[in-house]
């Protein structure tokens, strides 16, 4: 089986879908001839033709609006928004149009689009190349939000997203594009090569949306994470030696509530880790669900470890980033080892 980086796995998913389905097409800023600023669409225009993968004007609202129109017609467009920070001009199209087209037309028109966008920090991108906007999509009924953490998952989830009949926001952790960064900026990041989840099959396969993965089994506490934070969590758990169970949600809408409940009922403790700011973040929803469904199993308050409630600060990237040290502190608190 070939070993792939996350970029290569995403590229492979796109290529396989372009080959499989003439209704799939890709467009976005710089995705055509150049192959995207992160090279995820590299070679696709050359291989599949101008009309299957092409450059879009710098108009995010226009990109999503035209994708919705194409989707309503019957295509399966996979638009790219160059950075998740720049998805905001398209927010109204996503919230008021993509998310509601099926509902308001009673299924006459739908928007089977997959919006790919790199998100997250750790690349010294400052406040407009680092944000994690998943919560503002999770809040919108009618949108699905998927966030892979490995090359294998990235390919399988992207294929499932493209084949899904509803609009999917597909957020790609850009810090993981080339290797499983674990939140330790002072250490060399190993590449994906050699990582078990970098073994990616050629050809189509799917990972169903809404199925979490148990990355590590444990008894002492449950850590809920997705995207970049999965690797941060694993590294933190290994460092502190607390026997925590790590669940990679993979998709936050739909959410694998059964996996969450089963794990927290087993461990009785829960720490939620995400890079986005804490207040109003997706961790709040997770915390509420755990409290509602696992209250009598809980032995400690649910903790959230998140980015601070500030914009993403350029010079203070590693003070802002919720790295292993902060997770370890939280794990010690919930397990009473503090």
């Amino acid at each position, binding site marked *: 089986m070939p070993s792939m980086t996350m970029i290569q796995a995403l590229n492979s998913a796109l290529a396989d879908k372009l080959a499989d389905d003439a209704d799939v097409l890709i467009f976005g800023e710089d995705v055509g001839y150049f192959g995207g600023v992160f090279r995820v669409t590299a070679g696709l225009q050359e291989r599949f033709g101008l009309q299957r993968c092409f*450059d879009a004007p*710098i108009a995010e609202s226009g990109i999503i609006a035209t994708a919705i129109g194409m989707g309503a017609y019957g295509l399966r467009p996979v638009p790219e928004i160059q950075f998740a920070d720049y998805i905001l*001009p398209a927010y109204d199209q996503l919230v008021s149009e993509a998310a509601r087209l099926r509902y308001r037309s009673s299924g006459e028109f739908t928007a089977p689009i997959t919006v790919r966008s790199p998100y997250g920090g750790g690349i010294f991108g400052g406040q407009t190349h680092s944000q994690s906007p998943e919560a503002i999509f999770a809040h919108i009924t009618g949108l699905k939000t998927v966030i892979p953490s490995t090359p294998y998952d990235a390919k399988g989830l992207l294929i499932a997203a493209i084949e899904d009949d509803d609009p999917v926001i597909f957020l790609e952790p850009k810090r993981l594009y080339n290797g499983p960064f674990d939140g330790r900026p002072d250490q060399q990041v190993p590449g994906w090569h050699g990582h078990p989840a970098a073994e990616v099959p050629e050809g189509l396969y799917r990972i169903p949306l809404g199925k979490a993965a148990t990355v590590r089994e444990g008894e002492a506490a449950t850590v809920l994470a997705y995207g970049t934070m999965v690797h941060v969590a694993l590294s933190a758990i290994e460092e502190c030696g607390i026997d925590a169970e790590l669940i990679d949600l993979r998709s936050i809408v739909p959410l694998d509530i059964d996996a969450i409940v089963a794990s927290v009922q087993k461990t009785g403790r829960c720490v939620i880790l995400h890079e986005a700011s804490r207040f109003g973040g997706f961790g709040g929803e997770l915390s509420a669900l755990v409290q509602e469904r696992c209250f009598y199993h809980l032995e400690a308050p649910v903790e959230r470890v998140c980015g*601070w409630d500030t914009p993403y600060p350029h010079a203070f990237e590693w003070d802002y980033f919720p790295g292993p040290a902060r997770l370890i502190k939280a794990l010690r608190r919930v397990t009473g080892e503090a």
Partner: protein
Amino acid sequence: MRSRYKYAVSNAPVLRPNRLPLRLHIPEPVARPGEAAHFGNLALAEAGAVARPDIDTVEADVRHLPYTLIRVLDDDGHAVGPWAPGLDAEQLIAGLAAMLRTRIFDDRLFRAHRQGKTSFYMKCTGEEAIAVAQSMALGRNDMCFPTYRMLGWLMARDYPLDALVNQIFSNAADPLAGRQLPILYSARDYGFYSLSGNLGSRFGHAVGWAMASAYRGDEGIALGMVGDGTTAEGDFHEALTFAAVYRAPVILCVTNNQWAISSFTGIAGAETATFAAKALAYGIPGLRVDGNDFLAVWAATQWAAERARANLGSTLIEFVTYRVAGHSTSDDPTQYRPKDEADHWPLGDPVDRLKAHLIAIGVWDEERHAALTKQLDDEVKAAVKAAEAVGTLGASKPPVGEMFECVFKDADWRIDEQRTELGL
């Protein structure tokens, strides 16, 4: 089969003979790597060829301007025609110095990125005339809503070089306290509005600023800038609507440097219409100007400024130029455009052209040019040295507590608690 419709929508047969099926058009540039570069599609005009209308000319009488090219400097370095702004030697030399300082600074700080001293840099090589001439043509009470390629605005106003470098290094002396990406400056006292990474989102601020000045009966006007690629954003068009509706005293500008990262201007709609022609639909004058011609930039900016100051409303100006360097430190332009494309650019280099003009009018020579270059190089070197003494990226940074400042005027409990959690 019975139609679902009560009345037939159309009697036309679905497929007519001799009609081809619909076809999706995707624009492509003249040349990609390995192909022969040329700018044959670029409409030019001779220097001095375009008449300069009075500022109160009605818009209906200037509708040809978006499709010609206002130029002042001819190939021999002479300033010709009605747009020649009649600047004195001192102003011209100051302009040349600011352009050169910009270029030298760009080159040195771009190298600093390669040496790991900063996380990011963007150059404006080849585009220096635009920001420098505009900065000099406008007044201290006017506000520029810049793009990231307008370092020249600050250079023309003698913004301290070491403060720029400190910002780029995000060090302890960074005037923006480490919060912002390198080169996204903010310099209110220099008429330079806060930059952001988001494209186009300040174009409307320029209009609002101008409306506020008009509302208060003040004298200042505003200038907004976007790149060619950014004209596709809704923000660009909405700003133009507001500017036209309220006759806002604002100059709205497009720097058409032929590229938006890897996308050529056709992706922004330039296959058939110029960017200046966007003005036509909004009913405001649109000028298309040689952006590598310091004098033409000055003259066009001044014309639009006079209109704005006379309550005649806004003007859209397209500056035609060429992005000589890569998009940023993250970019390698040979991946998507011919390596030698810059050699085919027909409008020359703005520094060389202004220098040739100064020599032609007898106030400049190679010796003085070399001395000026050396002096500016020393100034930039000294500024970089001073900033390095404070520290480069990571080696020095503002106090971590700065991360929590300026979120609000007064921090609420969340920020207070998080500051404590971080041990501050």
